[in-house]
């Protein structure tokens, strides 16, 4: 074993990495719990990769076979029901944890210098996670997903000039067809994982490079007390804490999959009228409801176009937040209140759809 270690140390910087981690410390304070959200997101991502790879062995990406292949996985493949349910539940939990991570970073101002690139890579990862969700939703080729994708891919059509071309690009034709399914499958299992792996590696590397950020309020308290802040060794303390959280997440996934297996619904019928209650996955509901509530015309422009522009500008502002925020007491307060308002708005819009008022 020792000789294997020596063999490795001669060829790879294993010793340096171990040494770095052994000396690394994680701040300990009343907000430390939020540090685990990123780790949980990573855990769910790994679960997605593993279960996705297993599903790939039986899934067939064509309009004629997709639904039946998922049905086959759930009914005939040993533990197929479990793998598919875990994949679906884990995807949803991952989105939830990613949003929790995003808002905790926002409220704790962890995006400040020198962590600008960590924040930006995180924002790009959030976009990728949502793209994973959007493309994966269609893959079982069921009725609800088919019509929700038809509605979702229609949204860019309101953009002048390039809108119709964007819709064609998304759908692989003028309408959602088997071609769209194949396209989404390719994006879901090849393009997005490829980009995601690179971005995730960058993000994790940057987190390791800069360490965990201490919130401004804790920094001030430490300064006032004139004593060094409390911290925890990364190895093994923090890693074991993280492992505890991952194991809890695994138990939750297993329980959800066993007691609430993910439904398959009925096969998509492209000629059938749209069923009642079409709606996207829960994490798109706030945007879906906004698009429904926006008036047909806003300042003489198409309402839907205005909403799309507003979403895009909002996303861009979030991406550039570390550059925009001057890191003064006032600016930090503005960011906190804006984040709280955004969170409240998203929750209210989602609630409106879920209680049926948005229909």
């Amino acid at each position, binding site marked *: 074993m020792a000789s294997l270690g020596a063999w490795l140390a001669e060829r790879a910087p294993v010793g340096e990495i171990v040494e770095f981690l052994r000396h690394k410390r994680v701040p300990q304070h009343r907000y430390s719990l939020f540090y685990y959200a990123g780790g949980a997101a990573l855990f769910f991502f790994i679960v997605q990769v593993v279960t996705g790879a297993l599903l790939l062995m039986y899934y067939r990406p064509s309009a004629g076979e997709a639904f039946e292949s998922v049905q086959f996985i759930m009914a005939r493949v040993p533990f197929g029901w479990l793998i598919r349910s875990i994949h679906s539940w884990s995807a949803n939990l991952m989105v939830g944890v990613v949003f929790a991570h995003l808002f905790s970073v926002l409220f704790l101002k962890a995006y400040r210098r020198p962590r600008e690139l960590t924040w930006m890579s995180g924002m790009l990862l959030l976009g990728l996670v949502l793209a994973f969700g959007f493309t994966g939703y269609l893959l079982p080729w069921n009725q609800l997903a088919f019509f929700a994708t038809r509605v979702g891919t229609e949204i860019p059509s309101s953009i002048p000039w390039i809108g119709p071309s964007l819709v064609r690009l998304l759908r692989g034709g003028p309408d959602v067809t088997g071609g769209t399914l194949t396209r989404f499958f390719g994006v879901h299992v090849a393009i997005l994982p490829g980009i995601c792996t690179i971005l995730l590696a960058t993000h994790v590397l940057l987190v390791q490079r800069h360490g965990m950020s201490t919130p401004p309020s804790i920094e001030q308290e430490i300064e006032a007390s004139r004593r060094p802040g409390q911290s925890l060794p990364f190895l093994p303390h923090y890693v074991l804490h993280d492992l505890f959280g991952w194991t*809890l997440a695994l138990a939750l996934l297993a329980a959800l999959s066993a007691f609430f297996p993910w439904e398959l619904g009925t096969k998509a019928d492209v000629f059938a009228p749209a069923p009642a209650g079409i709606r996207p996955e829960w994490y798109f509901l706030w945007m879906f409801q906004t698009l429904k509530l926006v008036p047909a015309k806003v300042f003489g422009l198409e309402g839907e176009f205005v909403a799309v522009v507003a979403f895009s500008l909002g996303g861009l502002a979030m991406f550039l937040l570390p550059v925009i925020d001057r890191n003064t007491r006032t600016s930090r307060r503005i960011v906190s209140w804006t984040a709280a308002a955004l969170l409240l708005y998203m929750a209210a819009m989602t609630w409106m759809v879920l209680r049926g008022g948005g229909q």
Partner: protein
Amino acid sequence: MKMRVRLLAVSGWLLGTAAAVLAQSPNPSVTADQARALFQNDVHQAAGLTCTACHDQAKGDQYAAPARAGIPKLCGSCHTNASYMKQFNPQLRVDQYPRYLTSTHGKQITKGELRVAVCSDCHGAHGILSVKDPRAPVYPTNVAKTCARCHADPARMTPFNKPATPPEEWSQSVHAKALLERNDTSAPTCSTCHGSHGAAPPDVENVALVCAQCHVREAELFRKSPKKKLFDSLAMPECVTCHSNHHIVEPQDSWLGFEGDIGCAKCHDDSIGGADVIKGDRKALDDLSAAIAAASDRLGRAERAGMIIDDGRAALREASDQRVLARVSMHAFAAQPLADDAAKGLKSAQLALADADAALAEVQYRRKGLAVATIFIAGFLVTLGLKIRRLNRGE
């Protein structure tokens, strides 16, 4: 003076007759402008015909209404001409007028009775729509309403000694439910049994033939049954005796028995010779229904637990189909073929039950598996927690 009295009497009679004739038609009279507006949507307008096609005695802008008694013949002048009609629609029938003459309406109008229906009473006069148009008064879902305009009106029916109740009775029937609630346009409405242009009530001996147009198997079994001869000898209408004519409700398995005043119990008590057959048929149907209900309940539970139970659902559908067959086979008034049909249904229901039980067992297996996994995970978590505590104390 006498002359004046005669003139007054003649004028009064003329006015009275005119008023009576006007009251006979359910179509209100229209002005020329209204007629032109209605004609814009008329199938005849679409075919290129104009006002003069029917109003051949027009004077300038004045179009006299065709005489009521002459309307069927007027319509028939084109609609019986096969070579003329096929230029508009090669599929269109051209026997409406001869059929009308065989109807009660047609026979009465030939006798000069103007209070019976003519073409325009059912089809309209100026806004005639194709029978395939859901807005047309003769579209299947609208036929009963159209007939009811006269046949549900006691004032119109009493002079002919006809009841005005059939439309109301039909509206409560299984046929009305199928047609109006499920929009099943193959379900029978008035014209399906009575005919449309040749409308007439079927004779007692013909009722079964009319019902047999749809209920083929029931009629076939009944004809071969001992009941056929008996009903004929007593001049009892075959289907109507048990099912009524217009107010046909959904038959119940409980009719096969001696309770109440319906089904077998209408004429028999359990002292008759065939009582055992009736009881046997009823038991077979009850057993099958109980098995279907149990399978449906357990399949539902398995489905709610997230199981795929397609095979069970298919078997349950088969069992339900066999129950329909068994219920139809009751018309043989014998133990067979109902017993065989019910036995096949029972076998399918048991297959569905077995599938449901297997699925529910699988649910239990999964839960037990999860419980075992949870014990291991919990054990690991406790160990990890203890380790973390020890580490924290050491710090």
